[in-house]
Structures are given as C-alpha cells and as structure tokens.
C-alpha cells in the first residue's frame, strides 16, 4: 500500500457513481476522472459517450462517490504508545473507515510541542501513504497548562491548530494568553471543555446511574463552565476557539448564542454522544467509559438537535485507542476513550437511515464542514484538488465486531451494534489505499 510515484498513476475514471459533494450540494449520478494525484473532472455528463482508451475504469456500481471523510480528532499514539496504536494501524483503520484526512492530538510522547515532532509525524505518515495525517500542536509546553508552547513556529512547521488534547487548558489567565497569543497568527485553539477540578474524581456522568453503580459522577457543569468561560475569553481577546466533543445541552446553547453574537466559536461532537447515552455503561462496561462521559438521554437529544440545526459544526471520531490492560480494570481505574475511525461513517449515517437528515447533510458534517473548521484544503469535490475519495454503499448492513476492526486496539463503544453503510474503496491522492471486495 506504500505510495508510488504519481507518474505511474495515470488517469482513472470512476464511472456509474452517485456523486455526492456536500460543499456544492451536488447529488447526482455521474462519473469522476482523476489524473495523477488530483481530480481532473467530474459531473453527470462525463463519459456519457464512454471512457476513452488508455484510462483505467473503476465501476462504482451506482454507489456513493464522495470526497473522503475529514476526521479532526484522533489519537494515533505514535510516537510513544505504539502498543496502543501506530500511524500505520491508525492509517489502515482510517482508510477502512473512508477517512482520507485526519488530525491527531498532541498527547504523544514526546508531546507535539516541538517542531521536530510535527515533522516526524508528517514524514512518517507521508511514507506510509495511507490516510493523510495533520497534527495539532500543544497549547502549553508538555501539556502542563502553564507555559505557552511555540505556537507560531509550530504552525510554520505544519501544526493546523492548537490544543492540549484530552486535557483542558484550565487556568483562565493561561487560556486568555493562549487565545490572545494564537490570535497574533490567527491560529485556532481547540479546547477539551472540562473543568478538571470538577471532573477528576469522577468516572461517569453524574446522576442516578452513577449513584446506583456507586461511581463518582462528573457533573455536566464541568463542561458548561469551561464553554461559557472560554466564550467570555474569546470575546475579550478576539481569539478563535473550537470546542471538541460537546455533550451537554447548555454547552451547545452557549455555543449557539456565541455564534449569534458573531464570535469565532465552533464545536464538534463524536458519534457516542448522539448514538449512545449513559445506560451504555450498563454493568461497568469500560468500553463505554469516555471523556466527556456518556450523558443522559436529554443531553443526547440536545446533541442530535445541535447537529440538525447547525449549532454543532462537525462530527469527529474522537478515536482513542487503548490496549486491554488499560480497559480491563475496575471501572473507576480504566482509561477513558473509545476507537471510532471505522464506525464514524456508519453510525453517523443513522441520521440518514432514520430520516432525520438528508444524506448530503450527514456527509457535510464529515467532509467539508470539519475541513472548514481547520481551514484544510479537503473534504470537497473540486477540479485540481487532491483526489481524496471514498466510495461507499449507504445501505449495506453489517454488524460492528470489535475484533474484526483493523484498529490495533479494539475498545469500541459500538461493539455488537448493527449498522448500515459500508466503505468499498478509499482513494488518497489518486491511489486506492483501501478496497473491499463484494
């Protein structure tokens, strides 16, 4: 699967496709031509007279050909925690999930707070030739929440935005300076919205279920407080913020109000927060131990509404691989997080299957919308753009079996879930990097 020189790619015609491009609103039968690494042409009338000689033909069988998915929140664990996942294992899982661009968190070892780590990841990912990998730089050195990291130089090295990963920037003065300093270079800060002093002792959402299970709760307010605080800081500094994986009604409301006031505030959520609720914890299932924790049904419903009305800008997988040692523990001691690269598309497609959203609207949340949050040149069908494409059958039913997933770690909160929507082929820079027979 390693990348080959572009000269050998030639021209490839994807015919008999249902072209869906959420950015332009296109949803029509047609064909697409790639030349080398880029999209050369596409449209309903393309190859109506047949495909000329010398062009390789891929019959899409009437399935959906879309811009490859853009996943703006993944943990790849390399460098530092290769026993949980690697750029290669994450890359393979991503291609199987139809993801052609992903952005990894800086909570590696060493932390991505130095230009050399940005360059290391870029080089390794390029050599692998799988899904494209961009990275976030750290907001603070060592993710310690105190001294600012070299955001200006990290951005020059290629970091697309800045976050302390699975930790919030907790100190208000540090966050103020971070937003202000990042604003110098028009950089985006991505916040994990959680007041750690309220959350650190908790294991799941505070409430009846936590009480019955005898687990310490994480109050919803832990999220709401940081979202509301940071919106004030954005207003004060003129900075830009994006809240990752929002999970509570009030946090979403706060983002909606901030947007209405014209502030530079965006947010995303992840499939567990609209497809599951705290009952998934059931009998101490550690695969359902996530951060933020799965919330009660009313919050899940608020996340669904936020996605439908546009308050939530994008869906990200929040892929967080953990080996068995980190999960086969008493619930309170187990690590937080679940894998999500291979379930991102089918779980999101439930909105389409159950009639809550059009196919275009669901796909927008997975392609051009997340790309726009980070200003990435991806997630849309456009002549001259890199040929990053996903072919999938939106109706194909399958069952998530964690052990069958390509991810190195198998901690999926969706294990056993029947889903619809199967990726058939994934193309990165004109090269097929994933194909499923039959």
């Amino acid at each position, binding site marked *: 699967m390693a990348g080959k020189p572009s000269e050998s790619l030639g021209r490839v015609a994807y015919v008999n496709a249902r072209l869906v491009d959420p950015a332009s609103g296109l949803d029509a039968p047609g064909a697409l031509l790639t030349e080398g690494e880029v999209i050369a042409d596409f449209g309903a009338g393309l190859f109506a007279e047949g495909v000329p000689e010398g062009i390789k033909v891929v019959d899409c069988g009437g399935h959906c050909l879309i811009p490859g998915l853009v996943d703006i929140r993944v943990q790849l664990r390399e460098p530092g925690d290769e026993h949980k996942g690697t750029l290669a294992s994450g890359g393979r899982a991503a291609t199987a999930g139809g993801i052609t661009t992903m952005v990894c968190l800086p909570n590696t070892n060493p932390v991505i707070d130095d230009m050399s780590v940005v360059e290391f990841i870029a080089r390794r990912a390029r050599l692998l030739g799988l899904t494209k990998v961009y990275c976030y730089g750290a907001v603070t050195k060592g993710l310690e929440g105190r001294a600012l*990291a*070299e955001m*200006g130089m990290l951005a020059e090295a290629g970091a697309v935005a800045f976050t302390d990963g699975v930790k919030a920037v907790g100190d208000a003065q540090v966050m103020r*300076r971070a937003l202000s*300093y990042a604003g*110098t*270079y028009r950089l985006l800060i991505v916040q994990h919205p959680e007041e750690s002093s309220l959350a650190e002792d908790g294991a799941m959402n505070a409430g009846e279920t936590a009480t019955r299970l005898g687990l310490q709760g994480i109050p919803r307010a832990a999220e709401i407080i940081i979202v509301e605080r940071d919106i004030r800081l954005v207003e004060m500094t003129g900075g830009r913020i994006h809240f990752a994986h929002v999970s509570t009604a009030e946090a979403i409301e706060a983002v909606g109000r901030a947007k209405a006031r014209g502030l530079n505030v965006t947010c995303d959520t992840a499939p567990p927060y609209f497809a599951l609720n705290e009952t998934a914890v059931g009998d101490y299932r550690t695969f359902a131990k996530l951060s933020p924790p799965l919330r009660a049904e009313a919050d899940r419903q608020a996340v669904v509404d936020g996605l439908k009305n546009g308050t939530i800008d994008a869906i990200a997988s929040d892929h967080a691989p953990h080996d068995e040692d980190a999960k086969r523990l008493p619930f309170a001691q187990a690590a937080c997080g679940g894998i999500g690269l291979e379930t991102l598309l089918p779980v999101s497609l439930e909105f389409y299957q159950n009639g809550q959203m059009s196919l275009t609207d669901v796909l927008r949340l997975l392609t051009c919308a997340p790309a726009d949050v980070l200003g990435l040149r991806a997630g849309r069908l456009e002549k001259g753009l890199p040929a990053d494409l996903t072919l999938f059958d939106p109706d194909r039913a399958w069952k998530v079996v964690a052990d069958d997933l390509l991810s190195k770690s198998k901690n999926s909160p969706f294990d056993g879930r029947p889903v619809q929507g199967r990726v058939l082929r994934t193309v990165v820079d004109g090269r097929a990097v994933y194909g499923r027979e039959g």
Partner: protein
Amino acid sequence: MIDGASDTVQFAHRHLLGIEGLSPDDITLLLDRSESYVEQNRQIDKKKSVLRGRTIINLFFEASTRTRTSFELAGKRLGSDVINMSVSTSSIKKGETLIDTAMTLNAMHPDVLVLRHPDAGAAKLLSEKVNCAVINAGDGSHEHPTQALLDALTIRRRRGRLQGLMVAICGDIVHSRVARSNIHLLNTMGARVRLIAPRTLIPEGVERLGVEVFHDMRQGLEDCDIVMMLRLQIERMHGNFFPSIREYFHFFGLDYEKLASAKPDALIMHPGPMNRGVEIDSEVADDFGRSAIREQVEMGVAVRMACLELLTLNQPEAEQRNL
C-alpha cells in the same frame, strides 16, 4: 545664547510628570532648549552656572544606569549640586514609605526631585507632597517623558521634523512606559504611530491612544521612517506572554530581513538596555549607518539639562515657597 535665552522662555508646568497633557509648544520649547545644549556637551568645558546653588536629588527605586547618570551629568553641567539616592525595592515598602522618604528629602530643600519608581503614578503622588519640581524618570509602565523627548530630539536632528513621519514601536508595549510617552509625544507632534507586537504584548484599548496595531513585523514596518525597538521587560511579566525567546526573535526580533520592509533609510532606535538576539539582531544594532542608539544616549543629557533648567527657572522664588 544659552544663558541669555533663558530669560525669555517659560515652561508652563511646575513638574514634568508625563508627556500626556503637554502641548506642541511645550514640547517644541523643550526640544529647542535641548538642542542648544547638544553642542555645549561636545565642548571641552561643559560646565555652565545656570543652576548654581540649586540642589537636585535623584531618587531611584529601580536599578538604572543610563537615566540616573544622565540626570546626574545634566545637573552637574548646569552647576547644581546633585545627590543620588538609590533605594532597592526589596528593602522598602511601597506607598507610605515613598511619602515618608519624600517628606524627609523635602525638608532638605531640594529644587528638583528626579524620581524613578516601579509603580505607575508614583511621581504624581510625590509631586502632591513636596514643594519642589518633580521630574518623572519612569513610573512603572506609565510614562518616561525624558526618554520620549530624547527620542524626539534624535529624530528631529536626523530628519529635520517630526510631523508626518511614520514611526513603528515594536515589542513589549504592554509593560513599556517608553512606548506610552512616545505615543503621546509623536501624536502631539503630528507623527503617525504604529505598534507591532504579539497580541499578548499589546495593551487593551491602545488604539484609542491614536495608534495602528500590527501583529506582523513585515506588514507593520512597511513605509516606516523610524523603527523603535523595545526591550522585553521580563521582570514585569507575571505568567507568560510569549512561548520562548527563539520564537519571539523569529517573529518579532529586528533583523535585516524584516527591516527590509521599512523605508530604505529607516532609522533604528532603542531606549536601552538592549538584549541582543532577543528583540534586535546584533548586526542591526551595531549598524552605525542605520542605528541611532548611541546618539539617543547623547541626546539624553541635553534633554535632561533643558528639563532641569526650564523647571527650575519656572519656580517661584525660594522665599515664596512654603518654607
């Protein structure tokens, strides 16, 4: 000319606490008077007797080399007696003790108190408690009027005017009294002021003082006649305002590459002390063709002579003072 002219000039203020509030005429008077001392300071005999019999006390609550020396020389060259009092900040308490010290000194009948203090407003407070003239030699992040005057004198001598010039002030604006005094002076005299710094080093609402703010050196320096660099005042920073010296220098340190955006003959200035490799590249700092940094120091003595002279001449006769 020097001694004779003093009868005809009148400075309209009792103290020099800041540039804010001075009129273009006030500033022009101070600069014209300073100009006359530049030549005198280049003579072998530098001593005059304009302030003979007067007492000047330098009261410094912060470390200082150039400013204190400059005031001391200025006072001595005018024939006055100069006393230096350096008070280390660690050994005094603020507020009450400042006033106590001032009252003690006041009882010794000085004619001018020159105060440097780490807190904004200290010179104003002192001026309300003593009978003599007070010159602010730097109060916290508020003002440093003689620095702005010596900068203006340097520019005026090099460019012949202040009116219409484009001046960029770059670096740690938020903590800088030099920047504030210069903003007031340059605006009063019709120059245009730009501030260039990362957002964390730009104080809130500074646009209201009549400046344009830039966060990119190349953009900000475009078409500038004068480039003033400021030192990063690490000692005044609580928490961090920027990630590292190397990142700061990369984006905001003045080197030839960034300087190329300014006018080809743009003058480089720095109030000192310089941190080479932090806010300014050594090559640029030492470029005698472009850099006026040493000239600024020279102008400092002349400017302080003019300030001491004009303020003392302006004083009521000793017997009318509340003695």
